[in-house]
């Protein structure tokens, strides 16, 4: 399907000062495009979780919002370190968040499970030593 709008946000490792800015902008843009209700809430939750994972767990990466006539797509791609045990990472409550992240209230281990639950399509590719790519799609009814 024809892509209508796309924008990419770079997200830096351990940058807690601007953490959440990308997902806030994504929400704002979707509202301007007339996306609301249930889809907006689900995108809000998933985009925030995926952005924070880039900050907390990755060496840095980028988040791309693409809007199609019938769907919203979020792609998070980072430059490492990748996930060692993907099945484990997908479990509720599993987290490798460090002290710093935990002291800021992160590390509940619910991010990936919540992304999967909120997206209509969820795909995660990860290679340890390389990086992680997550693709999520949300259907516009």
């Amino acid at each position: 399907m024809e892509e209508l709008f796309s924008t990419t946000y770079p997200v830096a490792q351990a940058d807690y000062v601007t953490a959440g800015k990308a997902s806030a902008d994504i929400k704002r843009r979707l509202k301007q495009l007339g996306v609301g209700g249930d889809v907006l809430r689900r995108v809000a939750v998933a985009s925030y979780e995926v952005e924070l994972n880039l900050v907390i767990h990755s060496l840095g990466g980028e988040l791309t919002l693409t809007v199609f006539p019938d769907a919203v797509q979020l792609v998070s791609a980072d430059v490492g370190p990748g996930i060692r045990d993907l099945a484990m990472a997908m479990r509720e409550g599993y987290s490798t968040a460090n002290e710093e992240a935990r002291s800021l209230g992160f590390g509940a281990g619910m991010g990936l499970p919540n992304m999967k639950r909120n997206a209509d399509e969820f795909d995660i590719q990860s290679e340890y030593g390389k990086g992680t790519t997550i693709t999520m799609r949300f259907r516009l009814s």
Partner: protein
Amino acid sequence: MEERRYHSVRLDKDRCKGCTNCLRHCPTEAIRVRDGRAHILDNLCIDCGECIRVCEYHAKVAFTDSLPNIKAYKYTIALPAPTLYGQFRGLRNPAYVLEALKCIGFDDVFEVARGADVVTRAIRERMREPNLPKPMISSACPACVRLIQVRFPELLDHVVDIRQPMEVAAEIARAEFCRKHGCEPEDVGCFFITPCPAKMTAIRTPQPLGQEKSELSGAISMMELYGLLLPHVMKMQSDPNFVPATRYGVGWATSNGEASAVFPDNSLSVDGIPNVIRVLEEVENNKLNELTYLECNACVGGCVGGPLTFENNYVAKHAIRNLVKQMPEIHPDSNVPISMINKYKMRLDTPLEPNPVAALDESMTEAMRKMKRMNEIVARLPGYDCGSCGSPSCAAFAEDIVRGYSTEMQCIHIMRDRLQSLAAEMLDLAQTRRE
């Protein structure tokens, strides 16, 4: 064209100098400066009154009823928000203020703090019901409810569907008065003594806030009455008898008062619109889903910070705290009988309707095209957010352009660049001629 909404907050054209002060302080970006004066955008204004606070020329005003208006009714009851008690330093008993209200012309008084007691009990009962979203959000501050309708419409199912304390208080006050004096309800005017324009708007147009009609006949600004009340309050001697509200009801005047009455164990209270917006973003991100109750106040410090109050909000908060300290420790749970909340109307009549900011275009394809154009424009703008174009920020200006409300030449920086290159061209031209 949509019908215009009623707003208590308005512009006094003659006083407006067309400066950009209010423009940049409006928390919902609802102001534009055009043709040398400010304009308030009807659909975005939530009547929070921030512009009233910041305008140096007093060009932003709140429309409220004036004291002589009460003469339109055979009998009148004053319903002071508990915030009124905070306006008098060292006040020992709310009764002094209530008596003073009678001295300036009201036939009777009824504390809105008592309404807050009843509403506290009603919300606590409501919160027992299963399947409520978390957190539930307070519905007491109309400016915050309007903010949610405009900017966070998908959170509306979190807003507790119980009426505001002033509404419940007015219904009880009128019913009790009629019973006691054997008169008709329409002969009784109930006037709220208000700390803010948001409450005035809520009374004049109750439908968007889920009520078919308001129980109140109008609202009079605290600022207007302060000077009239002061000499009477000072003169009061003995404590007159009356059935007082609890310390919890009175506590609703300050931030965290409602939360600590309604759900002390697992609640959060936030005040000041920019802070409220930040916390609502967290709710939107599902980051506060373990919280049970969220109290939101548009004004810093809670209603004691209302734009129509006289006293500094910190001083007023202190006065309320001192007043409450000497009141007995009785919770509305034991003070308000359950029969009370069954007898009077507690629930809203209709669900709160969303009123989201319009998309850039009705067609999504067209909206995306406009968004792309918006990005291109932003890239050309200097990013100073100076407001000289009449829009609150460079980003808002770009949005105004694609929505057709402004043109790029309104930006003085772009204009200057164009003029400079034009001047350079003319110079070139002149030189070529001479050669």
